[in-house]
């Protein structure tokens, strides 16, 4: 067989000439390879010219190598047909798909190319050696995916260390009011799971803690966990709340997305697990003054469980597998100036609205407008949510804020369309007389029951308009949203009282540090890279390190739970058999090539 290799020089793996040359040289020395030709970056391929080339070189098979070689496949298939060769014999060597994404991955690129030349799928050839596996598992992040993975593994009777950075488990899902498209109460699904985690014998729950270092090798990792000083004894605290009542310091509540305040000693929310208070040392007067001022909470505590002078602790644990479930952050809406977030008081982000409409939120679930109130301490007027405040008569919901946008995030955040529709439902349900407008670009109602949900929202009387609004202006205190109704080619202007921004999602803060610590790559947007896009979406480059939930890419709750359970199954497999797999890194180019060769001859 005579094989022609075409290398498309796009992206990072072959960014510099030297790397390209090395890979091309390597490819030329593979058996049966007749010709190697770089296509340059962003090539346009003329099938006719290509067909002549193929016929002249009498090629029987083609390998297209590059970041997204599938893009060029149609042109090559056509060229093969034109040259009277077998059009089926166009093989792809996708660097992006198999982890050849960084500047240092030209070895990986070579092995991917070799597999394509031998006609063997890369995941089949690149199988790392087996390792012995420790039965304990570390799960980083205790949102819905971390909780799900931890419970699945622990229910099988295996030890799980669940590390959570904040004072409670639950993550973003605990903040939500309803889930789409079923409109179930998010807390009703999540809190039983949270309680199970809190009570589980096989789960060591380490909240207010961070993984500081990970050493060792796949199957035998050692983790250093920094246990921040909670300053309240988890075991003896009964969450009576007296400490919080006497605390003089108020700061924005993270759990309420900043639309309400909490004290410096606080419990994130009443159903928090563990159900214990904690001290925010950056806000606490006592801690900040080195014990010179305040200390009121410790004096009043009836259980005597507050130790304001407590120090953090470091814990060493030995584990076999690590599950990364660190979730996401929300893009800072201030960056997108055209919508006036931070300027117009009643422009809210999605998370803020979740808390506003949540029955456990600061207004008890009443959807109200912000009202001006004098802050006596700061002696300045500020906009706050008053449960007795006026309700909005009209609400605009703007999709794709910072998503699918070359200026912010190029990717689709995947959940915004559906939660925006859910918001429209909640507005209509609570304020039947209010008008509700949705401005969308494309309606991505892709999941089970999602499109039906979209139809339902339209039937409920929400005005759903195709066309993203460009700006929000204010005339005499009335916000005006302007947009183009693309379906009828008309400009539309609506006066609205409240604007909800479906803000896109970004990788959680400090994902870069974690990626570096674990030795796993991230994609160009910063999400953790899975080992193989199609064949291994839960594993990573590193043996015994898995990704679950949003930290891998934006996904909704059902997908997150599914991925979390899938990760648990893979972890349990290694524990039950006592054997895990080593990192892909442990394989040398020769290893992969030899295995590919042996598979090809079979």
């Amino acid at each position: 067989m005579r094989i022609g290799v075409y290398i498309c020089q796009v992206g990072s793996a072959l960014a510099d000439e030297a790397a390209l040359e090395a890979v091309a040289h390597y490819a030329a020395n593979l058996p049966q390879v007749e010709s190697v030709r770089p296509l340059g970056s962003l090539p346009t391929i003329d099938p006719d010219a290509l067909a002549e080339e193929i016929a002249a070189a009498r090629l029987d098979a083609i390998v297209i190598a590059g970041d997204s070689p599938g893009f060029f496949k149609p042109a090559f298939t056509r060229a093969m047909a034109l040259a009277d060769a077998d059009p089926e014999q166009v093989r792809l060597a996708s660097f992006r798909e198999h982890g050849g994404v960084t500047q240092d991955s030209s070895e990986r690129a070579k092995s991917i190319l070799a597999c394509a030349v031998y006609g063997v799928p890369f995941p089949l050839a690149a199988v790392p050696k087996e390792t012995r596996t420790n039965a304990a598992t570390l799960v980083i992040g205790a949102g819905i995916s971390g909780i799900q993975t931890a419970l699945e593994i622990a229910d099988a009777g295996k030890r799980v260390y669940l590390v959570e950075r904040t004072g409670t488990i639950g993550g973003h899902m605990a903040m939500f009011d309803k889930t789409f498209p079923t409109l179930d109460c998010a807390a009703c699904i999540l809190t039983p799971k949270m309680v199970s985690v809190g009570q589980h014998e096989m789960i060591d729950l380490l909240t207010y803690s961070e993984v500081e270092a990970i050493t060792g090798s796949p199957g035998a990792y050692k983790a250093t966990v920094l246990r921040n000083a909670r300053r309240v004894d988890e075991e003896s605290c009964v969450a009576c709340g007296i400490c919080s009542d006497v605390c003089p310091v108020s700061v924005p509540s993270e759990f309420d997305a900043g639309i309400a305040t909490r004290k410096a000693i606080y419990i994130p929310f009443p159903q928090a697990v563990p159900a214990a208070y904690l001290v925010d040392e950056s806000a606490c007067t006592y801690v900040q003054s080195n014990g010179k001022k305040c200390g009121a909470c410790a004096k009043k505590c009836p259980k005597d469980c507050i130790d304001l002078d407590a120090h953090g602790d470091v814990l060493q644990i030995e584990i076999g597998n690590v599950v990364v479930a660190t979730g996401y952050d929300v893009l800072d809406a201030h960056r997108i100036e055209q919508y006036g977030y931070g300027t117009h008081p009643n422009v809210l982000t999605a998370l803020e609205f979740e808390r506003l409409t949540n029955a456990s939120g600061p207004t008890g679930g009443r959807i109200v407008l912000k009202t001006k109130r004098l802050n006596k301490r700061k002696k300045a007027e500020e906009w706050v949510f008053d449960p007795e405040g006026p309700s909005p008569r009209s609400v605009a919901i703007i999709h794709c804020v910072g998503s699918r946008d070359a200026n912010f995030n190029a990717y689709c955040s995947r959940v915004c369309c559906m939660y925006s529709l859910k918001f429209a439902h909640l507005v209509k349900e609570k304020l039947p007389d209010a008008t509700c407008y949705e401005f969308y670009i494309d309606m991505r109602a892709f999941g089970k029951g999602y499109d039906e949900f979209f139809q339902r929202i339209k039937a409920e009387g929400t005005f759903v308009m195709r066309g993203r609004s460009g700006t929000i202006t204010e005339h005499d205190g009335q916000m005006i949203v302007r947009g183009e109704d693309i379906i009828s080619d008309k400009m539309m202007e609506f006066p609205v009282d409240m604007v909800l921004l479906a803000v896109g999602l970004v990788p959680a803060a400090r994902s870069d540090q974690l990626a570096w610590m674990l030795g796993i790559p991230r994609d160009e947007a910063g999400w953790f890279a899975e080992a193989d896009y199609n064949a291994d979406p839960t594993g990573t480059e590193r043996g015994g390190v898995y990704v679950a939930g949003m930290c891998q890419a934006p996904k909704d709750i059902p997908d997150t739970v599914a991925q979390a359970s899938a990760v648990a199954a893979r972890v349990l497999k290694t524990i039950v058999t006592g054997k895990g797999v080593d990192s892909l890194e442990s394989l040398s180019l020769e290893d992969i090539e030899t295995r590919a060769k042996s598979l090809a001859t079979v």
Partner: protein
Amino acid sequence: MALRINPKLIDELEVYGAEDVSKCYHCGNCSAVCVHSSDPYVFPRRSMRNLQMGLEDKLKGGLEPWLCYYCGECSEQCPREAEPGETMMSLRRWLTSRYDWTGISRLFYRSWRWEVGAILLVGFLTALGFLLFGFSQGSITHYNGSNAFLPSSKIHVFDWTLAMLLLAVLLSNAARMWWYTVGRDRSVKVPMKSYITKAYLLPAHFITQMRYAKCARKTPWLTHLVLMLSYLTMLVLIMFFLSKMASGPKIDWYVHIFGYLATVGLVVGSVLFLRNRLRKSSAQYTHSHESDWLFLVLLLVVTLTGISQSILHHSGVDVAANIMYVVHLSVVVPMLALEVPFGKWSHLAYRPLAMYFADVRAEGLTRREPASVPSEGLRAA
């Protein structure tokens, strides 16, 4: 009416500067941010769509590109970097070449080599002509008087002949523009009365550029207005007061003060725009077509040669002044004869005309439509 599709249109427009049209995914952000986009002229997204679909006739009959002043906000906010602002600019270039029946405009926009070559040729011929004319009837040592090298009375006749010629070409192109955008469309009946009652719009838009002033950023409007008014002042001076302009070396303040103000305006305006384009200071200056450079460079060269001529004349160096006069004319004539009817300058006619047509056409449309049709999405709700 059946729609004819030209699938090559999007490639054709690339030569005119629209390179990123196919990136557009129709979110409508550009139309929403544009202050000029309002019914029935919604743009730039619709123009992007028509381009992607190759609806040549629709685009040829569209007035939208002329209603855009390219403030650049749409391009800055565009989530796809599809450059809607530059697309509108390219469409203006393309439309100019469509309105022009001679085909010269199309040639110029598609090849700057042809354009520069034509300018050089006309410039050379002009210089040659005026030199022959000067030596045949006057003395190079005289700028004024009976023995003048280039007497203003004769130049005046030349100016008016050229002006009439240009006007004829521009008007014939403007008539084609009217036919494409208003006349051809049988579905819109514009009453004669509208044409008359709205006629005031033509000078109003021409002189004030009030639509440009609506853009969020005011500096480009102001610079453009100063440049245009200076140009207009200079034109009036040359067409009606040429003999007074040429008198001297004593300075005739009643006329010259306007000349000086206009000169300052021209220099400041063209230098500012050149600087913006060189620095790519904001979205509308990042993509410069060859025609944009030629426009500004020619304007600056004309102004600078004019200034030199004036200085030489007023300092009494008649020989040098006469030579500079010929140089000046050999830049002015190609600029006027080629750029005004066929190049970027033609927008001085098409823009106000488009706004006038847009208003009368909109009136015709309101007569046709009994009520606005609600949107598909809104109706479903």
